[in-house]
């Protein structure tokens, strides 16, 4: 058993403030905008100058002296729990020198700026290839010195392992232990890894471990009560093995993808439990749904991914309801069930939302194209899809614990992060996580050439133009990276490129290491790579001399994404670190963004003039649609949070493990 204070830290979870409403929300967003204009960057730059002044002459210091001085800061940070702002510049100067001696990298001023911003609890916007991992390491040292748990969260296991190993020498030099937690790690090793000063892991692992820990607590999460309990019944304590050391500081890499894009996706700890009622119902519902016709009995709403039953459809269901198990015969229930069966048929498509492997339905992440083996849809949807595919219907998983990243990260007292694209989402970052965004400039000026956006009426024209454009650049001997929005789109393009006789790499549902390798290879001369937008995030595309001379990497975006950030991420793959490069996007009226967020009348009128397509109104509509999509997403974040909060308050008797 730990000392009581360690136990206390392990178990105490911060209770996040409620999201402000009404005028308070207005006031909060005002303070956010005041904060952005308060000259934080200027002040941080001044500190960077200070660090550089401090750094003068340090190269002549012997290793032993450097260690001693680092240790001195280490002690000061530990004693004051990391709250010694006056020591930060000198400490960073020393760490910078240590980084150079241990791993051969000397942080640029922009990286120092990023580290300072993160140490202040901001979100640093740093372009890809600007050395975010080193920046994170600098911050991690400062956070680790306080001896409170510090988690560095990467996008995947591979990066967690790689970064932890890469920076271990630096941490050791600074007197810190670093370790990493990956999916395949056993619990007892996890406990040790989390025990390190600095732990590299993915957000999913961390949240899952947090939930599992909480499940073990069995509702007695109050440290004092647990202490008494353990003193009274020592056997209980021995049986427990909590792995986490508590939540304190988190450094989140690719913060926008975790804190915004995936924020509402809950992580669910589940166990299968027999539910014959549901299984039977799904089979019957599929049967009933088979007798209904689109248009006559129901309509499909693509924008909201919803099925709406028509009155005729409702009547039909009523007449067919006798085929259903008795529980489901009432009008409300039968409609609900059949609706689900229809949406399994209409909205969830094989190859797009899921694939079938070994007689099992596997969910495919629409954005990365990656198969997610252990995921399943909730509330009978999974079963409905299995029924539709004629597979044996599996027992539904029963949730035992669930939590969204959004709620989880709000539990951290200290959170900071970095990403290539944050500015567009500064409002949600501030409103939900109280994270101010600091834009860090690139080390070398960016010379990316962004070409005019090409607009088309039909997707047919668009893909033809994309293929032609790929061919043209390819002839110049330059590498081309084509970003697609979905797996389906990348396959469409692959067919066309094959027809042109071009060789290419298709990045699609593979393991992380390989994914990173393919993306890294995308910079080779005359290489053509097709990848979904999110694939290979965090991997550098290095250019050879010859490629750079030919004009660098060319990036083609084949569609606009729901968020401007993701478009920018894709473009950011070209012309990094001062390299040459270019980018162009191709959009058409049939893109999903248009279909979902532009009213049909507007689309039709745009198509009306689209002999040669009027660029201006087209792009205006496109931008408006993108904004609408962003707002829609933000509202989604907020409403999920509101529901969670309501549940917490009114179900506090059935205490969720997230609550304190």
């Amino acid at each position, binding site marked *: 058993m730990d000392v009581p204070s360690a136990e206390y830290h392990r178990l105490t979870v911060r209770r996040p403030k409620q999201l402000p409403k009404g005028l308070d929300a207005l006031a909060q967003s005002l303070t956010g905008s005041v904060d952005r204009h308060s000259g934080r960057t200027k002040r941080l730059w001044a500190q960077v100058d200070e660090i550089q002044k401090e750094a003068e002459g340090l190269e002549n210091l012997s290793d032993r002296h450097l260690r001693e001085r680092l240790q001195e800061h280490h002690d000061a940070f530990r004693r004051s729990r990391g709250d010694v702002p006056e020591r930060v510049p000198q400490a960073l100067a020393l760490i910078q020198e240590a980084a150079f001696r241990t791993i051969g990298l000397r942080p640029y001023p922009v990286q120092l700026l990023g580290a300072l911003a993160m140490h202040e609890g901001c979100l640093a916007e740093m372009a890809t290839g600007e050395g975010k991992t080193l920046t994170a390491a600098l911050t991690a040292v400062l956070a680790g010195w306080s001896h409170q748990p510090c988690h560095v969260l990467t996008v995947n296991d591979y990066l967690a392992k790689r970064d932890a190993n890469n920076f271990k020498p630096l941490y050791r030099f600074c007197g810190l232990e670093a370790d990493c937690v990956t999916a395949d790690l056993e619990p007892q090793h996890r406990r040790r890894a989390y025990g390190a000063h600095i732990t590299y892991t993915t957000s999913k692992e961390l949240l899952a471990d947090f939930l599992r820990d909480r499940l073990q607590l069995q*509702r*007695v999460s*109050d440290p004092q009560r647990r202490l008494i309990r353990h003193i009274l019944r020592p056997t209980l304590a021995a049986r427990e093995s909590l792995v986490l050391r508590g939540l304190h500081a988190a450094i989140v890499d690719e913060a926008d993808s975790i804190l915004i894009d995936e924020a509402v996706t*809950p992580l669910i700890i589940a166990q299968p439990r027999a539910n014959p*009622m*549901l299984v039977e119902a799904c089979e019957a519902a599929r049967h009933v749904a088979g007798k209904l016709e689109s248009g006559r009995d129901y309509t499909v*709403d693509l*924008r*909201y991914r919803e099925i709406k039953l028509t009155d005729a459809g409702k009547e039909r269901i009523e007449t067919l309801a006798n085929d259903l198990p*008795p*529980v*489901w*015969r*009432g*009008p*409300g*229930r039968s409609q*609900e*069930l059949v609706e689900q069966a229809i949406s399994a048929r209409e909205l969830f498509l094989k190859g797009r939302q899921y694939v079938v492997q070994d007689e099992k339905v596997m969910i495919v992440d629409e954005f990365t194209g990656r198969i997610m083996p252990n995921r399943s849809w*909730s*509330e*009978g949807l999974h079963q409905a899809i299995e029924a539709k595919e004629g597979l044996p219907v599996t027992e539904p998983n*029963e*949730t*035992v*614990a*669930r939590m969204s990243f959004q709620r989880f990260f709000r539990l951290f007292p200290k959170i900071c992060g970095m990403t290539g694209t944050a500015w567009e989402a500064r409002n949600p970052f501030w409103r939900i996580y109280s994270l101010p965004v600091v834009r860090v400039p690139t080390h070398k000026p960016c010379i990316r050439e962004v070409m005019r956006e090409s607009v088309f009426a039909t997707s047919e024209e668009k893909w033809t133009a994309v293929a032609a454009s790929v061919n043209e650049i390819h002839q110049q001997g330059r590498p081309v990276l084509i970003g697609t929005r979905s797996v389906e789109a990348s396959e469409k393009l692959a067919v066309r490129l094959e027809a042109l006789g071009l060789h290419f790499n298709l990045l699609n549902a593979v393991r992380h290491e390989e994914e990173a390798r393919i993306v890294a290879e995308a910079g080779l001369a005359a290489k053509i790579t097709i990848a979904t937008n999110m694939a290979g995030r965090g991997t550098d595309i290095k250019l050879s001399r010859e490629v750079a001379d030919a004009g660098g990497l060319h990036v083609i975006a084949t569609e606009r994404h729901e968020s401007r950030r993701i478009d920018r991420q894709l473009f950011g793959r070209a012309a990094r670190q001062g390299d040459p490069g270019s980018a162009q996007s191709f959009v058409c009226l049939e893109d999903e963004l248009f279909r979902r967020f532009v*009213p049909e009348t507007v689309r039709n009128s745009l198509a009306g003039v689209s002999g040669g397509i009027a660029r201006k109104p087209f792009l205006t509509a496109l931008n408006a649609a993108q904004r609408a999509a962003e707002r*829609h997403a933000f*509202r*989604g974040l907020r*409403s999920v949070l509101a529901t969670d909060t309501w*549940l917490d308050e*009114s*179900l*506090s*008797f*059935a*205490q*969720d493990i997230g609550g304190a």
Partner: protein
Amino acid sequence: MAGNARMFSEHWYRVSDQRVALRAGVRTRRQVYRGEVWRVLYDPFGNQFFRLRPAAYEFVSRLSPKRTVEEVWKECLEIMPDEAPGQSEVIQLLAQLYLSNLLQLDLPPDAQQFFERYRKRKSKERKSYISYIMFARFPLFDPDDLLNVLKPYGKAIYSKIGMLVWLGVIFSAIKVALDNADALVDQSQGILAPGNLFLLYGSLVFIKALHEFGHGLACKRYGGEVHTMGIMLMIFTPIPYVDATSSWAFRKRSQRMLVGAGGMIFELFVAAIATFVWASTGPGVLNAVMYNMMFIASVSTLLFNGNPLLRYDGYYLLSDMLDIPNLYQRSQQQLRYLAEGKILGRPNVKPASPYRGEQITLAVYGVLSGLYRIIVFGGIILFVSRRFLLAGIVMATICVVSWIIMPTVKYVHYLFTDPALERNRFRAIGISLAAAICVVALVGIVPFPSSFTAPGTIVSTPFVEVPARASGYLKGLETPANIAVQPGTTVVSLLDPEWDFEYRAEEAMLRHTDALYRRSLHRDTADLSIIEEHRAVMQQRLHRLRERRDNLQVRVPAGGQWLPGALEDLDGIWVDRGSVLGYVLNPERHQFVAVISQDEARWLFDEAGIRRARIRLRGSAQAPLEATGWRVIPAEQRELPSPALGWYGGGELAVAEDAREGTEAAQTFFEMRVDFDQNEDLSVLHGRTGRMRIRIAPESIWTQASRRIRQLMRRER
């Protein structure tokens, strides 16, 4: 309404393994609503109520610490597959029960959470105190023991015989009141006089205290408990209240209704007794107090307590009568449903009731109560602002902010950000915009008939004043009133006792002069011419005196109808020369002279300005006189056409304070002389006052209202 909620919920795991049950002390009562058996859960300690629909009760009643929620739910599904609540409904239900403190948990009590909840509740209460400061309640004591003592009386009162006696008393009181109707109306004028306010308030507190005991006793009578009595602020006026909510759990509708009506039963009874006392006493304090009680009981019963459109006793009565609990909330819900679902096209909104008839009732009630509220508050504001302009402005500002500005801001916010409107935002914004444009057009652009009123008096045209040509004591009327007279007819005679002396002295002087004259003829012829001159002067004086004597007989200068001033009772008073004793009128032609204030003057000189004018004479308002022609005297006036129009004469126009006749207006005005159609039935007499409503060119409501407000401000200045 069963089963509409989703069957499965992703949050189910939070409750599925819980073992919960209703707390031991919670009592259950059956209540029948619209043929459905509902159960009311009642917690006597916390005084909490919770109404459950049948299927929900089936579920809740099966909860036990021995079984998990999941097990109970499954059992319910088996027993009543179609009716049983879905998972999300169960979660809702448990959450609500928990928040009402009706659940017993198997959770080891977590003190920290208890305190946290307590703190939250306290701070919520404090907040609601501040926001309801106008209607804050301060509990004072527990009247239960007192009511127990009084219980036998309560039983007697709320019995068949008691109610018959009550009816008898009430009807005879109504008869007495009708018999004395004119006195009743007369006395109402002084009800808000400053001197009466204290008595009025005292009566109010007394009668309301009895009212509350009425509720309390009725509640006791049927076995309820009453534990709180205190003071409630109603628009800053402290008034007693009692907490009779335990009656909500009464099984019988009639009993619940009787508790609701108990207050008014007592109040009206007191008012009836007061009527008898009032009718049999002469003016005095007792009489005034009784009158106040009658006034309060009847007015408050009609306008507030008994009126179901405001949320007082009448509301609960109606709610029970219609068998619609939470009438107000649900009517709001229904209106919301109509507005959101039917007009804005928001999907998935549900009507407040599954029954069509009930839906209509709810909608009608919602609209009526909203209108009534606006009228009552509008009336109060107008009433207050007439007396205390500043207070009126403050109240009006609060109302405008809380009824117009805040809802508009909220609505716009809702329109643009509410996720529920996501799919229909275009349509919703379009419709709202169209509605807003309609309202703006209706208020700001579309002209509506507009008019203003002006006081005035009937004047005969022409009319001739009959002045006293000499001073003297009034001796009497020579010609009775309203008689046609010829020019020169004596109408009034005056008496001047001085005249006799003067005349005799002058005569003596003349005789003396005559004597001197005759003597001079003999002796001094040289003096003769002087004496002659002297004598001529004397004779002239005598002539004038005789003229004066003639003038004491007041004669009319022109022919017409003789209308004396108010002289009958004034025999013997002194009349100065020149004062008007009466008029000779032209009975053939009358005009109405209207006094038009500066505020409205601009209409008078606008060719197309005045469309039509209609005169209503005081006392004959039911028969208006249509104006046929008018002429405005294009100069500002100060002298009122009749003192009856000024403050001193009981009129409404301010007059200069130093003017004794009370005809000099405080502000200059324009005079408008109006010809009108004679009405056979109406005696149009010179001097009758009235009001003229002048219809002017149509104006938008906005222009009219802002003009009115400007005038109100100016008047106050």
